[in-house]
């Protein structure tokens, strides 16, 4: 059933000032339109340059339904190519990552390509003399993604030729990547410890909203926080905590804590939750590390970096950054009702091993498929996905702290429990969808 294709007006009507329509989460047609429009026209996180340290290293990744590969070039640059042979479409590589040597060789008929995708050679060359091969797409080598931005080793792509520039799109929220990278006294991060991968049977936007939802931890995570509190009972607040306790107990910090942590929204759907403090603010201090940070960055900047530990910084539509535990989550939509969530940990050059341990421990406790915290989140996302099928009420409420003036400003700083952070995502959703659909029309 086609309802929304070629009807940008109907798509726009799904997002009202203070509520959104359930079709946003349920409709496979909207999912297909998101792949074509939203995920193609925005800047989407692909991977980290440390995954491909040597020339010929590649990592494969689907973005918006397109099979891509990120490849390290002989000159040190990172390029992104389509993983599709120019001859008949075979995938050039089917491993998740590896090293291809000095060129790509298609396993089917042995056409070869340079690391930047340029055609190199093919068997029975004479057979192509006098044909149109050179002039057609198939003779030009691999398709390349033209709009690639490597920002402090975070690799983003924009698949479409239209859309905002990288800097215009992300703007001030890039400070969250700066903060995370600058937590290395050498200004360098590498992906470490592997990626935890979860399949959740819910719409990707629901997961993203939850990253900005501070009202749920008290009720959703009650079973985990109550169990942790009971186990920790009798200890003085100043007693050194095992890392797991340090990381789990703050989930039960109370409504006032989450409200006061504050939030900020930016144009294009991005946001920072916890502009004042967060559940990550009170990890044990590390005097030697802080001295190394002061030596590297100077007193003032070091203090600024270390004091800033937001709960989450959202790079709409697919990346969420936690500077303090040096961890990111990446949202990879698979279908209207299925989403792959990845949790990555980083090593910071020049920082003590404890920082990496915190990143891995946090991801393992909170985002592993065997997490002690996330089972209740996942259950509720899957429950919402079912519940929204109910008729009677077709709308999802985002009314909390709605203020008509908020739609007039690009950047707003507000209380931490304001649903503005979610409304801001949906406003960006409507804007990108409309821009893509109108350009296609």
């Amino acid at each position, binding site marked *: 059933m086609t309802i929304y294709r070629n009807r940008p007006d109907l798509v726009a009507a799904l997002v009202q000032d203070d509520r959104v329509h359930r079709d946003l989460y349920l409709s496979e047609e909207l999912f297909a339109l998101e792949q074509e429009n939203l995920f193609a026209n925005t800047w989407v996180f692909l991977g980290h340059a440390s995954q491909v340290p040597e020339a010929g290293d590649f990592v494969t990744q689907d973005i918006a339904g397109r099979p891509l590969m990120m490849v390290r070039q002989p000159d040190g640059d990172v390029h992104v190519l389509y993983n599709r042979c120019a001859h008949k479409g075979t995938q050039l590589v089917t491993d998740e990552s590896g090293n291809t040597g000095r060129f790509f060789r298609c396993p089917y008929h042995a056409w070869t390509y340079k690391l930047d995708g340029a055609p190199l050679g093919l068997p029975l060359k004479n057979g192509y003399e006098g044909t149109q091969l050179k002039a057609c797409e198939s003779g030009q080598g691999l398709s390349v993604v033209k709009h690639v931005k490597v920002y402090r080793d975070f690799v983003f792509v924009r698949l479409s030729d239209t859309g905002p520039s990288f800097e215009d799109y992300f703007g001030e929220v890039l400070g969250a990547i700066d903060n995370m990278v600058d937590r290395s006294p050498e200004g360098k991060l590498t992906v*470490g*410890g*592997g990626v935890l991968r979860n*399949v959740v049977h819910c719409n990707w936007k629901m997961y993203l909203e939850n990253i900005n939802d501070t009202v749920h931890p008290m009720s959703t995570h*009650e079973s985990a926080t109550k169990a942790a509190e009971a*186990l920790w009972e009798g200890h003085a607040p100043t007693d050194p905590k095992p890392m797991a306790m340090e990381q789990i107990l703050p989930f039960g910090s109370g409504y006032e804590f989450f409200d006061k942590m504050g939030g900020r929204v930016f144009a294009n759907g991005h946001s920072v939750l916890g502009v004042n403090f967060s559940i990550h603010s009170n990890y044990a201090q590390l005097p030697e590390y802080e001295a190394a940070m002061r030596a590297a960055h100077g007193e003032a900047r070091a203090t600024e970096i270390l004091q800033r530990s937001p709960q989450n910084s959202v790079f709409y539509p697919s990346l969420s950054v936690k500077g303090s535990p040096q961890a990111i989550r990446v949202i990879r939509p698979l279908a209207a009702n299925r989403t792959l969530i990845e949790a990555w940990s980083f090593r910071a050059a020049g920082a003590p091993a404890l920082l990496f341990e915190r990143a891995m421990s946090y991801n*393992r406790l909170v985002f592993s498929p065997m*997490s*002690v915290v996330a089972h209740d989140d996942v*259950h509720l996302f899957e429950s919402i996905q079912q519940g929204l099928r109910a008729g009677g009420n077709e709308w999802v409420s985002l009314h909390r702290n709605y203020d008509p003036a908020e739609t007039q400003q690009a950047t707003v700083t507000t209380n931490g429990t304001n649903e503005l952070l979610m409304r801001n995502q949906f406003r960006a959703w409507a804007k990108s969808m409309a821009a893509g659909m109108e350009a296609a029309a």
Partner: protein
Amino acid sequence: MTDPRDFVAHEAALLDERRLDDWLALFAEDGHYWVPLLGAAQADPFSHNSLAYEDRLLLQLRVDRLKNPRAHSQHPASHSQHVLQPSRIEREEGDEAWLRTPFLYVEARGENQILLSGTARHHLVRTPTGWSIREKRIDLLNAPRALPAIQLFI
């Protein structure tokens, strides 16, 4: 129960009967439950992450959480079934024993069930009252791939 192979079968049965306190009591004070993210290829729990790496404190937290009526994901409750191949004793030395047990693991909840397979590796120590677990390591066949929520203990 002096044959460590019987102990391994008993340990899995306690999980499937959801006798989680009795199960936890099988762990030594310094015991660990470990599910490496790289499966059998992983050397240690520190240089690479794990799906789970838990000491007794964390195992206790997990067991207590499962008992809490506000453990929303346990409405309806999950149930497990371990299907074990015969355990092989890899090594026995003094009061310690190392065993490998290939398995299929089914976790069922509501309309859904998940199937996992791999090898459990037990490092046991003999105590005056019987065997206890120094480490239970689960090498899943496809550990680094995307997984749905695994709520109980493999």
